[in-house]
């Protein structure tokens, strides 16, 4: 009868008060931007970190992606936040993958990579994209700094129960259609607030056939549909990914862990507050035209006309978005030129993403008008990509090959758009100014972004790679 979410929740209830339960938190990931005030608050109240061994800290948002970062970080604020993280982690006895650690990377990449994120756990981070980790069949969610402080002090959080939504994706995806296109299509379908108040479980044969990397891309952007939680039931793909990773259950406990994990999937008769279906067999590569992730369309489409939108609030929003993006209704998406290309972020910087982009880049050249960046999600992803020769494919084509970090996803480090610049980006948010003040973002998959880098405009990768 219960869903995957409900089963995990049930086993984490410490106590209850009215419509809230005190939920025990198994794992806590910490980065430099949303944690300093939490540590300061803890210290001001004379409290200590309850279970430092349940935590892992990493700097990612502020770090430059150029080699000079190990010598000196120019920006004072960035330097101070990274230093504060270092001191706070050291002071509390929290494991830290520091800036020069080969395991350093984007927090949502390194958690799974280390084996820390496992089925059936609760895991939090002061970052809205923590839902990424729900791909392992976990309750994973983003929290604010006050909640970070609360978890540091108590290893628990007061939570209301979210509604339950099931998104079933079925059908075989065509060539060059990727998990990014699945999630963009889901967000376009239910809207940027369609998932507010819900935990969303992704199910169906298309999801089952995805790798862990692909599943993480899907869960990563659940928050862009408003849902704080995205989940996928654990299966053999999950177990195979985890086996042997440094923080995964050791051989002596492995069989017991897997036996436990197999009990987690939603029961067949589980009750859903909402169900949504998506047919992936006729899905096309998607691109956003506006300033909300819900503004996604198949690449063959045209910029929509707000004039035909019946709802006045939505009409006003679309007009504003088109003005910001400097686009006119009716323009073909493939006629939009780009200045920058960003391949990276917690959405699309895992090894599969880099392979997909490199396959398009290999033997081709970045367009003369384009600056293109590839930023691996972690030092380990970078190393693996280099072992596979992907860095050569990118460098030979004229892409820049950077060090790991959040990079151009959010305008907190030197990788930023300048006002008016237009970017084909594999990140997750196309909000006004997200990639830098006045910057314009078009979200798409890594293969599509690579195609945009080659052609100098938004392009259908199926034509470019043919």
């Amino acid at each position, binding site marked *: 009868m219960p869903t995957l979410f409900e089963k995990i929740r049930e086993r984490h209830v*410490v*106590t209850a008060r*009215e*419509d809230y339960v*005190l939920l*025990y938190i198994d794992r806590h990931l910490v980065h430099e*931007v*949303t944690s300093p*005030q939490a540590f*300061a608050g803890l210290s001001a*109240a004379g*409290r200590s970190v309850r*279970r*430092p*061994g*349940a935590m892992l800290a990493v700097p990612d*948002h502020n770090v430059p992606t150029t080699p000079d970062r190990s010598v000196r970080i120019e920006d004072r*604020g960035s330097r*101070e*936040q990274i230093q504060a993280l270092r001191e706070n*982690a*050291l002071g509390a006895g*929290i*494991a*830290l993958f520091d800036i020069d650690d080969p395991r350093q990377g984007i927090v949502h990449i390194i958690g799974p990579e280390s084996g820390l994120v*496992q089925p059936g756990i609760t895991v939090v981070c*002061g970052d*809205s994209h923590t839902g990424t980790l729900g791909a392992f069949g976990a309750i994973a969610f*983003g*929290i*604010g*700094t*006050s909640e970070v402080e*609360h978890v540091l*002090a*108590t*290893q*628990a959080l*007061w939570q*209301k129960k979210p509604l339950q939504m099931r998104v079933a994706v079925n059908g075989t995806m065509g060539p060059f259609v990727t998990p990014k296109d699945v999630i963009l299509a889901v967000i376009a379908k239910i809207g940027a*607030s369609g998932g*507010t108040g819900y935990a969303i479980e992704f199910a169906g044969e298309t999801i089952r056939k995805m790798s862990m990397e692909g599943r993480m891309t899907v869960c990563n952007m659940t*928050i862009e549909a*408003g849902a*704080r939680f995205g989940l996928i039931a654990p299966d053999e793909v999950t177990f195979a990914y985890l086996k042997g990773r440094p*923080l995964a*259950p*050791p051989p002596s406990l492995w069989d017991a862990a897997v036996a436990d994990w197999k009990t987690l999937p939603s029961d067949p008769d589980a009750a859903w507050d909402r169900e949504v279906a998506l047919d992936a067999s006729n899905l096309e590569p998607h691109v956003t035209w506006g300033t909300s992730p819900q503004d996604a369309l198949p690449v063959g489409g045209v910029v929509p006309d707000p004039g035909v939108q019946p709802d006045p609030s*939505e009409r*006003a*929003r679309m007009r504003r978005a088109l003005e910001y993006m400097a686009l006119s209704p009716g323009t073909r998406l493939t006629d939009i030129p780009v200045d920058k290309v960003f391949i990276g972020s917690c959405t699309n910087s895992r090894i599969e993403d880099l392979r997909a982009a490199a396959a398009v880049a290999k033997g081709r050249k970045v367009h003369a008008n384009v600056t293109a960046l590839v930023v691996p999600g972690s030092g380990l992803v970078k190393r693996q990509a280099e072992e596979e020769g992907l860095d050569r494919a990118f460098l030979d084509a004229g892409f820049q090959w950077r060090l790991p970090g959040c990079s151009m996803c*959010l*305008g*907190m480090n030197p990788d930023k758009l300048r006002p008016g610049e237009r970017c084909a980006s594999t990140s997750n*948010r196309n*909000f006004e*100014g*997200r990639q830098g*003040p*006045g910057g314009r973002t078009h979200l798409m998959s890594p293969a599509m972004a690579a195609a945009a880098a080659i052609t100098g405009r938004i392009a259908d990768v199926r034509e470019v790679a043919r």
Partner: protein
Amino acid sequence: MREKFLSLSTVGVPLDRMNVDTDAIIPARYLKTIKRTGLGEGLFFAWRYDMDGKEQPDFPLNRPEYRGGKVLVSGENFGCGSSREHAVWALMDFGFRAVIAPSFSDIFHDNCLKNGMLPVTLPAAAVRSLIDALLAAPGGKVAVDLAGQTVTGPDGDIHAFGVAPFAKTCLLEGLDEIALTLTSAGEIDRYERERKKTTPWLFLDLAG
């Protein structure tokens, strides 16, 4: 740490947009701080100022009639996007104590409650009428009564709103939630002892 929420009767500030995201509320470059204070400076920066740093005269927060207002009224999905609590700190530092909207992002909503700021969810039609009234007659007052769970618009219309009882108590009393939770420390200890037996692999701790 949180402020008590007291009832308000103040100028209502209309921000007639939907999907106001936390990057718009406080751009990322303002997050490079290790303090909670002083963030009001960056609030809605890209909308308040032009590229040369000059105030945009038409933006509601810059119009004299709305200055000093403590209640922001906006569209659907307010606070979507990033989990940055800096968005709430920036709104509060600027002077806001409540936001009224047809819906809020879940994380922003929770972040408000942790800081003594009240997110009020009203039906879309009620929010529309409030925004229209505040745009038509700038400077109109909006009253927010948490104990009675009502909003009174400039035209005297009263709108009831819901709030979870636990959240309401925390807001009215300005409770320190961590202190409250620590009264359950014994239960947390007990929980950990039990879970160590059933799922020992989750207690193989990381070395600091």
